[in-house]
């Protein structure tokens, strides 16, 4: 039987999704063209959160820009802090005391856990299960407690400094970190039982928005999004910085365990598994942290030599690359921040073609974008 489409004329519908929409993870706007429930085109429109961080960076000193990196990815402020510090240190060739590097690794990995927790929690909430989201928030609060103890703030930490960290770990911090890890590790299995392998959840995620490995590479995806496509590339392993080479951990990749490699479920599972690896790293770091100073000698009026440096670090949402140009003055001449979410947004239009409206939400969640990082 052939269906006569001329008898019932249909029209494509344009729907505006966002900037105020519960599952666009902020102020992302997506212009959907749909044929009923099927999306024929989804064009992302970003920039609602543009604050001109790169322009601000040209007006403040290297040290003063540190608090602004908190606002780059507020769910992983520690990673952005440390990325900035590492970038400036690469530019100025500063040696950082080992204890400071250990502390940085500890806070970066703890923040990776808390950031992935939000990714996991908000993803399940997008899929309609609200309970895991609150469980994730509960665990994240503990990480925030640790950070509050360490640096005094719960969200915008401003902890790293050019040449070290702002303060040594207060007494009891490392013990509390260990306590948290012991508490947290079994929770991951609970999440898997509760939601990860739930039939409905798997069906919603598996085989949705498959990004093949070649495409992921061509689009420059990084972090969990790249690894979800089965490419074992992790900057902590492959372009090691800081003291990461001293730790034993595994690079988690998507294997297509419930569908095609590179689908939403793989990207989701990579994040869950990465939390486990982060726990391992923090355990090792806490056990081996050396004594010593936490701050190198950096002149108060810090002027790096003229030059250009590009530093890449592995943030929870992919590579955060900082391209710094110094003209030898106290302010950066130009800085460009390349973020994982910004690149991930580029592939959005391509992978969402032909999906359903509900899948758009799944794709946004699985790419784990965060808008301040896209818009800067």
């Amino acid at each position, binding site marked *: 039987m052939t269906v006569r489409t001329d008898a019932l004329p249909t029209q494509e519908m344009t729907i505006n999704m966002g900037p105020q929409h519960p599952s666009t993870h902020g102020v992302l706007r997506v212009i959907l063209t749909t044929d009923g429930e099927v999306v024929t085109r989804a064009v992302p429109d970003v920039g609602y959160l543009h604050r001109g961080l790169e322009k601000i960076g040209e007006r*403040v000193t290297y*040290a*003063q*820009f*540190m*608090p*602004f990196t*908190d606002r780059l990815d507020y769910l992983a402020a520690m990673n952005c802090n440390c990325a900035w510090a590492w970038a400036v240190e690469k530019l100025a060739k500063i040696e950082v005391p080992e204890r400071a590097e250990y502390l940085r690794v500890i806070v970066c990995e703890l923040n990776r856990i808390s950031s992935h927790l939000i990714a996991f929690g908000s993803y399940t909430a997008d899929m309609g299960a609200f*309970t895991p989201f609150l469980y994730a928030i*509960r665990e994240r*609060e503990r990480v925030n407690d640790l950070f*509050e*103890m*360490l*640096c*005094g*703030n719960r969200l*915008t930490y*401003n902890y790293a400094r050019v040449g070290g960290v*702002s*303060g040594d770990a*207060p007494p009891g911090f490392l013990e509390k970190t260990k306590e948290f890890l012991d508490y947290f590790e079994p929770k991951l299995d*609970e999440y898997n*039982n*509760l*939601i990860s*392998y*739930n*039939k*409905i959840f798997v069906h919603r995620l598996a085989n949705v928005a498959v990004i093949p490995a070649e495409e992921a590479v061509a689009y420059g995806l990084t972090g969990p999004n790249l690894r979800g496509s089965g490419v074992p590339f992790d900057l902590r392993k492959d372009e090691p910085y800081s003291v990461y080479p001293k730790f034993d951990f595994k690079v988690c990749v998507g294997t297509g365990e419930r569908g095609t490699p590179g689908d939403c479920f793989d990207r989701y599972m990579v994040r869950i598994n990465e939390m486990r690896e982060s726990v391992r790293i923090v355990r090792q770091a806490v056990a081996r942290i050396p004594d010593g100073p936490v701050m190198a000698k950096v002149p*108060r009026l810090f002027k790096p030599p003229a030059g250009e440096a590009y530093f890449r670090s592995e943030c929870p949402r992919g590579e955060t690359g900082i391209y710094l140009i110094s003209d030898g003055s106290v302010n950066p001449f130009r800085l460009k921040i390349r973020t994982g979410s910004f690149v991930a947004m580029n592939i959005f239009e391509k992978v969402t073609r032909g999906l359903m409206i509900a899948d758009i939400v799944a794709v946004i969640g699985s790419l784990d974008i965060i808008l301040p990082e896209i818009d800067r």
Partner: protein
Amino acid sequence: MGLKEYMNDIVEAVTTTAKGMRITARYGVDPKEEVTLQYPEERWEIPAGYRGFLNNDVKTCTACTMCVKVCPVDCISLESVRGADKKMVLASYDINIGRCMYCGLCVEVCPPKSLKHTSGYEMASVARGELILHFIAEDAAEIKARVARQVAEAAVKAEAAKAADLSSDLSSEAARAAKEEAAKGEPKK
């Protein structure tokens, strides 16, 4: 889709749902799992290094303007005049906590450690002006005028003392008195 797959689908759906429901049930019946903090009746323990509202101890502040220079968002404004004893005298010291982002850079650079974070975090206001903390109650113009007066007085005294030193017949008492007079101005501030 074969029959086996079909049945497997159903069995898997039922078992995974049951697994999830067992976990939620455990949380549902266990009152120990509740983590809500009943703010404002219950409060959490604020750690030692908490970065709350800024407070400047104006008595020890040397008006060096380090904090103003380092602040990335320009939320601190400071006015000072040079006093009679060559030290800087604060005329006004305001922090706009509506703009402050609690990064703590100013506290780190403060040489006399007079600027500190407090543990305060509760503040609500309907007017933006209320978010500006004034650490010196007195009007800046008045302070400036007073200091200028003191400076002028001290200058006159110094002039007199110089003159006294120069003229050999004047007793040393007068010079001492002039010095005392100049010194009195300081504790008044």
